[in-house]
C-alpha cells in the first residue's frame, strides 16, 4: 500500500510546518534563578540570536524537501534525519543553558518550554509516520525508541541546569525505589487479577447466576472513584490489622500498599473478567462442535482449541488492564503506597512542575511500553491477523 511516489507526504509536511513555527514563535525553555521563583520564558532566538535560530532550520526544511516527492530512498533519508533531530533535541537545551545561565548562579535552573514539547511531539510523530510508511516492524520501532533514549542519556552531563534533571539528582535513590514500587504494584495487581479473573470468568461460563451477579458487582466497583475506594478500604483494613495477628504480620495496614493493591485489583478485575469471558464465549461454536465430534476430550477441547483461540482477546484484556493500572497506581501514592505518584503529589504540593514531570514522564513511558509490548504479543499469537477470522 505504497502511495504514489509523486504525491507529497502531507503528514510530514504539516508536522514540519508546526515544528518550524514552534521553534520560531514559542519559548524553548524557561529560566529561573532558583527553585521557588517562577521562570521567565526563553525563546530560541533570544538564546541563540536570530542567526543561530535560523541556522537550526535547514534540518527541518530538509525533512520537508524529502517529503515533497517521497521515494523509498528519500523516506529512509528522512527517517535518518528525523532521528538525528530527535536525538539532538537536548543539545539545544544544553547550548541554551551554556549561553544564558551565569555560572556564578548555581541555583539557576532551566524548565522545558512549549517549543521543546511541540518539537518533541512533531519529531516523534514523524518517526512513527516514517516507520509505518517504510513498513518497519515492532522490533525496529523499539530500536528507534531505545536509540533516542540512549542519546538523551548521553547528553545528561551537559544538562546540569535542567530543572527536571536537578529534581532527579536530588532524588535518584528514591527514584529507582519508586519505579520498582510502581512496577510491583502494577504487576501484582494485574497478575493477581489475571488468575482471579480467569477463575471468575470460568465460573461465570458454568453458571449464569454467577455471571449476572459477577458483572453487577464488578461494574459497581468500577463506578467508585479511585480515591473514595482507597478511603473505603482504610477503615476495615486498619481494623483487621489491629485485631488479626497474621494480617498484621503480613504488613497490612490501613494505609500503604495493602489498600492500594486491593483497590487496583478491584479495578483490574472488570476489564480482565470481561475480556476473558467474552474471549472464551466468543470461540466459533462450529469449531468447538467439530473438536468434540472428532473425539477430543473436554480437556483437549479447552487447552488445544478454546484457550488458544481465546488468548488474543484475553491478552487484549491484560493490555487494557495494565495500562489502566499504571495510571491508577499514581493516585495510590496519596495513601502512602509509594510509586511514581509520590513525585507528582510532592511536586503539586510544592508547586514544582518539574518534580511533577519527574513522576509523570516515567508513568507515560511505562504505559506506552506496556501497550506496545502486549499489543505486539497479541498480534504474534493471532495467525489470522492479516485477514481476520474467515466467516
Amino acid at each position, binding site marked *: 500500500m505504497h502511495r504514489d511516489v509523486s504525491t507529497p507526504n502531507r503528514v510530514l509536511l504539516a508536522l514540519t510546518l508546526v515544528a518550524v513555527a514552534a521553534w520560531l514563535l514559542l519559548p524553548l525553555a524557561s529560566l529561573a534563578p532558583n527553585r521557588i521563583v517562577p521562570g521567565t520564558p526563553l525563546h530560541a532566538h533570544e538564546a541563540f540570536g536570530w542567526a543561530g535560530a535560523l541556522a537550526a532550520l535547514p534540518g527541518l526544511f530538509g525533512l520537508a524537501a524529502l517529503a515533497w516527492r517521497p521515494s523509498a530512498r528519500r523516506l529512509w533519508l528522512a527517517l535518518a534525519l528525523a532521528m538525528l533531530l530527535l536525538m539532538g533535541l537536548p543539545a539545544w537545551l544544553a547550548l541554551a543553558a551554556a549561553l544564558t545561565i551565569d555560572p556564578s548562579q548555581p541555583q539557576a535552573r532551566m524548565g522545558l518550554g512549549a517549543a521543546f514539547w511541540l518539537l518533541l511531539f512533531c519529531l516523534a510523530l514523524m518517526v512513527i509516520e516514517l516507520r509505518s510508511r517504510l513498513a518497519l516492524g515492532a522490533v525496529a520501532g523499539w530500536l528507534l525508541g531505545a536509540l533516542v533514549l540512549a542519546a538523551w542519556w548521553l547528553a545528561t552531563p551537559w544538562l546540569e541546569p535542567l530543572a527536571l534533571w536537578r529534581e532527579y539528582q536530588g532524588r535518584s535513590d528514591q527514584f529507582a525505589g519508586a519505579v520498582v514500587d510502581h512496577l510491583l504494584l502494577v504487576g501484582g495487581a494485574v497478575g493477581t487479577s489475571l488468575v482471579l479473573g480467569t477463575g471468575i470468568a470460568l465460573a461465570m461460563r458454568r453458571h449464569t447466576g454467577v455471571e449476572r451477579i459477577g458483572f453487577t458487582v464488578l461494574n459497581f466497583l468500577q463506578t467508585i472513584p479511585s480515591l473514595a475506594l482507597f478511603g473505603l478500604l482504610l477503615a476495615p483494613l486498619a481494623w483487621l490489622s489491629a485485631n488479626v495477628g497474621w494480617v498484621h504480620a503480613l504488613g497490612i495496614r490501613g494505609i500503604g500498599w495493602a489498600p492500594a493493591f486491593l483497590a487496583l485489583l478491584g479495578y483490574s478485575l472488570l476489564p480482565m473478567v470481561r475480556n476473558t469471558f467474552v474471549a472464551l464465549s466468543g470461540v466459533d461454536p462450529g469449531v468447538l462442535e467439530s473438536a*468434540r*465430534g*472428532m473425539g477430543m476430550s473436554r480437556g483437549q477441547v479447552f487447552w488445544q482449541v478454546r484457550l488458544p483461540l481465546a488468548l488474543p482477546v484475553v491478552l487484549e484484556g491484560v493490555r487494557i488492564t495494565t495500562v489502566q493500572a499504571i495510571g491508577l497506581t499514581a493516585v495510590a501514592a496519596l495513601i502512602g503506597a509509594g510509586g511514581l505518584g509520590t513525585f507528582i503529589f510532592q511536586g503539586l504540593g510544592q508547586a514544582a512542575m518539574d518534580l511533577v514531570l519527574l513522576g509523570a514522564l516515567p508513568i507515560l513511558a511505562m504505559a506506552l511500553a506496556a501497550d506496545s509490548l502486549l499489543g505486539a504479543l497479541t498480534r504474534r499469537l493471532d495467525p489470522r491477523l492479516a485477514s481476520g477470522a474467515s466467516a
Partner: protein
Amino acid sequence: MIELIEVTKRFGRETAVDAISLRIERGELCALVGTSGCGKSTTLRMINRLIEHSEGEVHLEGRQVREFDEQVLRRRIGYVIQSTGLFPHWTVARNIGLVPRLLKWPRAKVEARVEELMTLLGLPQEQFAGKYPHQLSGGQAQRVGVARALAADPDILLMDEPFGALDPITRESLQLELRDLQSRLHKTIVFVTHDMDEALALADRLVVMRAGRIVQQGTPLELLRDPVDDFVASLLGGNDRGLKETTLLRVGERMQPLSPRLLPQARVHRDATLRQALAVMFREHADRLAVVDDDDMAVGELSLRRLVGARRDE
C-alpha cells in the same frame, strides 16, 4: 452398519425426534432430507453422541453406541459440518492429522496419512500443507474438512450439510468428487441436506423426515415415482419431479438399436443423463438423437417417445 430402533429425542418438552427406526447398510450413502427443524441434524448427532438420545436404541456394528466410550466412538466416525469447523490456529496439515494424533499414531504414519489424503482430495502438499484455514477458499476448506474426517480411515462418515455454504459451481464439483470418492472407498455415509437435488444426485437411499418422524424412505427413483403424500411430492419438486427423474437415468438404459432409418445429426453420449438428452433435443429441435460411445461411434438411437418412457416406439 448403523441401526436406530424407536429412537426419541426430547429437549425439555419439545420432541425433536419421535420414535424413528432406521437401518443404514454398510457401504450405503443415506441422505436424511426434510425442511429446517425436522430433526435430521439431531438424528445425525445422536449417532456419534454429540446429542444423547432420550429413548430407544442406537446401534453401531451391533453394539449400542452408549456402550462405547464417547471419545473412542467419535474417533471411529468421520464428521463433517457445514462451517467446516477447521481449527483456525492450526495449519491444514495439522488439522487433517488431528484424529490420527488423538489415536496416538506414530509421527511418521500420521505424516504419510496426511500426505495421502491431501493427494486424494486434490490439495497439493507443497501448496496447502502450511496454509491456515483463513487462506483457503470455501471449496478448499471443505475439502480439508472431508480429508480430516477421513484421516483415521473410519468406516462411517457423518456429513451435516457439508456443501450448504458453497456456491453452486463449487458445490456441484464437490458432489461429483464425493461420489467418485465413495465409489472407491465404500464408506457408510449418513448425509444431511435440505437440497433435494444434492440428495438425489448422491444418495443410494433417501430418508424424508418431517416434524421428527420419518415420512418415507427408499431409493431416489422409488420416491420420485411414488411419493407417499403431498408433502414428499412437493419436497421432491412437485411437477418438476419428472425432470428430476431424468437426471437419474442414463441414455444407455432407454436407447434402441440402430434402425435402418437415416441417422439423426444431433448426438448424445451413451452415459449422458436423460436430462442432458432432453436438453440436446430441445436445443437442436430434434425428436430423435444418435447415441454415441466414447469413440463417437453411433451405437444406438433415442427418440423422444422412448426417452419419456413410452412402451413402444413407431
